[in-house]
């Protein structure tokens, strides 16, 4: 039995279905992420787990027990809010020990746990400071310590890194992974930032319009998106409308109008004649002046339409026959050579027969 079971949960707000028949199983000790664009229902779902909102239909079970009749203050789980919601009139120590005070923890135990918590989030020197005297990262660590101090079964994190600047966020991500591993508490993390989700999670549920589109490990989600939405939402991807010519157990052959034939890995339920989308990640697309890409099974001629220099990589947009655009990503591994190709250069692009995939719809 999973630690947290979400069974057919639906939540309507007026005519809008915020969460639509969602079922998820979250295992103990997991770092689980709800990922989706704003309005996809991820925060509503999180608030229902915390108890601030109730499902119109369905059940939320913690260790097999329905939470419906348990008010938020009695649920053995805590939330780290996006704004951290630190109590401005309390010091770091008073904030962190607040949950212990509420559960009437004896003073001896409180002191011991406080010391542990302060060391764990490296805030020993800031114990007597007020929240307004702390930096963004420190506030975030206080919120984490406060959420973890009385050892809840679950910690819910609502866009908890969104308020940090990009550089700090990366550092905090590493800290968060380590912290979760050390405390062994299940984390349910809500975010709209797919890179964050990929970096942090054991498993991710991608949400869209109140529904769960796919639940998988980060690498599976990125490598084998189940549908167009997931493919498009996670990372960058080239999508080309295509029709199945032939489907075998080893591969599918696709026809792209104006471009020709593409060979892609097989898809069990694809049938000849089906219209769909061929998708391929930019880093899987090779680009060259000469015949190097031509050795690959799928290769096409085109001209460089535009390029984006991003420091570590450059993204080339290549215009193929019939106006089809393909993005190819090239690492800038040689210092100083920012541009390998110029806009307007005639180039060849290609990819291996086992790269990319055919998606229904």
């Amino acid at each position, binding site marked *: 039995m999973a630690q947290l079971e979400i069974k057919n949960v639906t939540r309507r707000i007026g005519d809008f279905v915020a969460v639509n028949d969602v079922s998820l199983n979250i295992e103990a000790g997991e770092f689980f992420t709800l990922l989706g664009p704003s309005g996809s229902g991820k925060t509503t779902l999180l608030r229902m787990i*915390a108890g*601030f909102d109730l499902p119109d239909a369905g059940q939320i079970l913690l260790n097999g027990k329905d939470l419906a009749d348990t*008010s*938020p*203050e*009695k649920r053995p789980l*805590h*939330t780290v*809010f996006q*704004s951290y*919601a*630190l*109590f*401005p*009139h*309390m010091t770091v120590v008073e904030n962190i020990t*607040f*949950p212990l005070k*509420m*559960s009437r923890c004896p003073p001896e135990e409180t002191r011991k746990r406080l010391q542990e918590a302060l060391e764990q989030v490296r805030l020993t020197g800031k114990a007597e400071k*007020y*929240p*307004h005297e702390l930096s963004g990262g420190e506030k975030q660590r206080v919120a984490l310590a*406060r*959420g973890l101090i*009385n050892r809840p079964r679950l910690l819910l994190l609502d866009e908890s890194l969104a308020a940090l600047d990009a550089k700090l966020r990366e550092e905090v991500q590493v800290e968060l992974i380590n912290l979760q591993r050390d405390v062994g508490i299940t984390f349910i993390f809500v975010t709209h930032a797919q890179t964050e989700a990929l970096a942090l999670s054991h498993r991710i549920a991608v949400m869209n319009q109140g529904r769960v589109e796919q639940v998988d490990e980060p690498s599976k989600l990125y490598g084998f998106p189940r549908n167009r939405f997931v493919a498009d939402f996670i990372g960058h991807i080239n999508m080309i409308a295509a029709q199945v010519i032939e489907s075998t157990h080893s591969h599918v052959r696709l026809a792209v109008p104006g471009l020709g034939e593409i060979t892609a890995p097989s898809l069990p339920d694809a049938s000849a004649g089906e219209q769909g989308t061929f998708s391929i990640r930019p880093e899987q697309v090779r680009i060259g002046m000469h015949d190097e890409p031509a050795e690959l099974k799928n290769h096409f001629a085109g001209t460089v339409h535009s390029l984006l220099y991003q420091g570590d990589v450059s993204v080339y947009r290549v215009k193929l026959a019939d106006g089809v655009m393909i993005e190819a990503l090239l690492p800038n591994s040689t210092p100083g050579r920012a541009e390998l190709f110029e806009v307007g250069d005639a180039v060849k692009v290609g990819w291996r027969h086992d790269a990319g995939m055919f998606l229904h719809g």
Partner: protein
Amino acid sequence: MDKSGKKLISAARLTRYLVSGPPFIFLLLLFIAPSVIMVLASFRYPGEFGGLAPLAADPSTLHGITIETYQFFFSDFIYTEIFIKSILMSLATTFICLVMAYPLALLIALSPKQSRDLMVLLVILPFASNFLIRIYAWMIVLGPQSALNQLLNSMLHLFGIAPVQLLFSPFAVLVAMVYAHLPFMVLPLYTNLEKHDPYLLDAAQDLGANAWQRFWRVTFPLSLPGVFSGSALVFIPALGVFVIPEILGGTGDMLIGNLIKEQFLGTRDWPFGSTLSIMLTIAVLLIAWFTAKLGARRGRYV
């Protein structure tokens, strides 16, 4: 910094002085100057028909400078007693206003945005009619023939208790004091409560606090600045009130305000009136200083 930058800064400074100057001068002239005049007047002798006796005149009459009024103030305990009574009455008014205004302010702050303005308007609506008339209205409400007093007395009769008179009593004074000052407590409290981050209450609940704990550990401590400013806005004017006891109080319900008014308009002893009002100012400043110290200790986080 180049020249034009310096010029800009001095222009900004000039604007600041021009804008803040008039109110500053206004306050200086109309607050500081009268206070100084009061202090000077308190060391003089009263004039024969009110006003002040001349500094130098016919040696047969009292003239010049004296500390007689201060000696007089401390010679009879009755004045100190009226001071204490007035302070207690103002404290009671402040406390009752706080207890009544807090739930109201909280209700307004938690209401949907569209209805808040209307509710605030209702709170200040009584100001639209004349203060005196509103106080006289309480005479009717509390009078011996009023439905309220008759109902009360018939209830008391059931329990075998002698009938009471509401009007011309400290009770009537207190009721009207609370009535008159309630909006001054509601508004600062509401202004404070409205700014609270609702996520703080969610967080408190999430961390195990029940409704009672959420109020006493989060809402109330965060509202203390509003509590202090509301209390100051009620307590200080309540201390100087003289109309309410005069209209609704009995003969023994005189407060400092009445006493001071009496010195200027009744017995025409301006120096003693001045002494009394200086004493009042000192009392208010002491209390304000004390509350500010209390507030500063609690308000370090702001």
